[in-house]
């Protein structure tokens, strides 16, 4: 293929020679190439052998705001000014190389970051268009990691592994926990998807990361559902209190607060839960699905912590807003049961592994230890985003009993 520009015969200043090329086969490219080098009012001679060249050229010039100065050979185009007018108010949508802009102009719409944007066109109705309210410097790296770590539920889990050896009561506990996990992961899917829909696409890496987060949760919903149904029985129960707890997450309108409640506190707490389930998994499928989900959730937590810390570093007063959000959620859930009692009992039974009283005692203690680890993790993350230790302890204690 000849390289562009290696055709001096076809182009010299002030002349566009189309040879036998018609304007119905792309001939306008050669004409525009010639016109590009002229100022409005400049003249371009067009030569060529296409039989309809003059007819085509008259129509083309009219449509594109140029004047055809002669209908006979040589055909001469007088360049119009509309091309320049079209781009007169254009501006770059930030810088492709640099960091995203502090404020994304709604008029940039869906344009790629760094693109030259023609003025006009519909503004994008994005709620989140300020960098401080959505950004974390680690977002590009987390997105790259997320893209590299996508797994296929069909092959990443050995669905043929035997679960026959799992005692029926333990299997029922697994099914109950899976039922609970699906409900929580559905909330965790909807929240980033909703934030994504309100985010200015100028913050591309955050948009991409939220998209992978939603895709992660879609897989989690799939594998937990599949494990829950693997033994052929019905799924477990869904408690009103658990759903009430999740509803408070869905109702949070602010980007950072939603990210904080979901990822820092909820998914952060879930990291310990998934580790616990992996450790006490009675079968390889349960071990696989919890391990895979854990890996994804760790990225979600990392972004939530990094973003919240990014905002509170520039606006320490925001810590007060976050504190209020925890207190508000606690107050809203005060009169609900919180965690489904059947989920709690299932966790005890899973850790116990049998109905033997001594085993139950061990299981009970394991779940108490889990709650302590969850609390410790929350306090650590709250401290990382700027809360003093005492306040972190206080807020951690107010976290929903439903874990998420």
């Amino acid at each position: 293929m000849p390289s562009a520009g290696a055709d001096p015969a076809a182009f010299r200043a002030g002349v566009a020679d189309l040879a036998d090329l018609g304007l119905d086969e792309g001939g306008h490219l050669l004409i525009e190439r010639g016109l590009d080098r002229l100022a409005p009012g400049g003249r371009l001679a067009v030569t060529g052998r296409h039989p309809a060249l003059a007819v085509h050229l008259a129509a083309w010039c009219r449509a594109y705001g140029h004047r055809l100065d002669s209908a006979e050979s040589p055909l001469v185009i007088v360049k119009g000014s509309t091309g320049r007018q079209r781009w007169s108010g254009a501006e770059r949508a930030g810088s492709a190389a640099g960091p995203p802009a502090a404020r994304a102009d709604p008029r940039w719409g869906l344009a790629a970051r760094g693109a030259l944007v023609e003025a006009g066109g519909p503004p994008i109705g994005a709620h989140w268009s300020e960098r401080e309210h959505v950004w974390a410097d680690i977002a590009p790296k987390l997105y790259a990691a997320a893209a590299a770590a996508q797994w296929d539920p069909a092959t990443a889990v050995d669905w043929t592994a035997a679960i026959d050896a799992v005692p029926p009561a333990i299997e029922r506990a697994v099914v109950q926990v899976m039922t609970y996990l699906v409900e929580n992961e559905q909330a965790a899917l909807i929240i980033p998807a909703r934030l994504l829909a309100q985010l200015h696409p100028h913050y591309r890496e955050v948009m991409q990361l939220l998209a992978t987060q939603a895709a992660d949760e879609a897989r989690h919903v799939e594998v937990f559902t599949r494990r829950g149904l693997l033994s052929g029985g019905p799924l477990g129960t869904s408690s009103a209190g658990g759903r009430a707890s999740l509803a408070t997450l869905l109702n949070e309108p602010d980007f950072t607060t939603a990210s904080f409640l979901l990822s820092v506190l909820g998914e952060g707490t879930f990291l310990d839960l998934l580790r616990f389930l992996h450790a006490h998994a009675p079968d390889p499928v349960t071990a696989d699905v919890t391990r895979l989900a854990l890996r994804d959730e760790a990225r979600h937590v990392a972004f939530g912590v990094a973003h919240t810390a990014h905002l509170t570093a520039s606006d320490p007063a925001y810590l007060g807003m976050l504190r209020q959000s925890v207190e508000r959620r606690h107050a809203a859930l005060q009169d609900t049961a919180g965690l489904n009692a059947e989920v709690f009992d299932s966790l005890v039974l899973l850790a116990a592994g049998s109905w033997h009283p001594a085993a139950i005692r061990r299981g009970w203690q394991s779940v108490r230890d889990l709650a302590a680890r969850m609390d410790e993790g929350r306090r650590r993350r709250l401290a990382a985003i700027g809360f003093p230790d005492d306040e972190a302890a206080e807020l951690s204690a107010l976290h929903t009993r439903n874990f998420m």
Partner: protein
Amino acid sequence: MGGVLLGAVAYDPKVVTIWDGFRSWLRDSGGLDFDYVLYSNYERQVSDLVDGRIDVAWNSPLAWVRARRLATARGVPLTPITMRDTDCDLRSVVVVRADSPVTALADLADRVVATGAVDSPQATLLPLSLLRSVGLTPGTDVRVRRFDIGVGLHGDHIGGEREAARALFAADPADRVDAACLIDSNLLLFGREGVLPAGAVRVLAQTPPYDHCTMTAGPSASVSSAGPWAGPDDALPSANGDVGDISDTSDISRFGDLLLGMDYADASLRPLLDLEGLKEWRPPRLSGYEQLERAVDEAGFYAADGAITADGYRP
């Protein structure tokens, strides 16, 4: 009632976008009390213009011809306001297949020529007039296969032209035509779309240049100092001697000035101008309609008084 009421023909859904957008701009940026109504066809729009039910009409060239005839017959004035840059110096072409033995218009004798809709100036009336100019009477010396799509829209709907172009290459010989009539811009468009394969057609003949749409003010906005054409006896008052409300007139004048002042660099207007197919509005000229006047007479499309006399024309 003051202000300007414009009539436009809804030949495409985009007409609503265009005139809604212009309406907002004329009212908000221009401070003009402007509104518009849409018509399903040009004939009713022209009648309403001449009857004074609307102040201005966005007229096709054929609508201008009829409006002029009706106004002359009634002794009421019309005032051309403006036209688009893209309305000036159009040509229609008669094309044949590249390998056709036909090399001159006269060779089309006893052959089949495809045209657009009955009321298309560019794809029917003007090219058939071109045939007459070489002594071929359509329907007698040449067979005409008309593609009546969007009748009443004066060819604004290009479906008829597209079907005429396709008929050059119809698979069934019984459906195939020897020549097709198109406007120059659609020759290019259909070539780029692939409806006419590259190199597959030859331009047999083309009309002299003519002009297309024109914005016309009717008698409701008349004054003695009306524009370049104001009726058969120069500037005419309306039949009852009423020269109209002076505020209306200044509104029409302001409307024309606002259109002429529309700037393609204005990002709020540019999408509308792109949709309407222009880069700038220009002062009107009436020199480009003689060809069509002649074609209308030859075809017996309208009578001298503007009555519709075309056979089988049901807009």
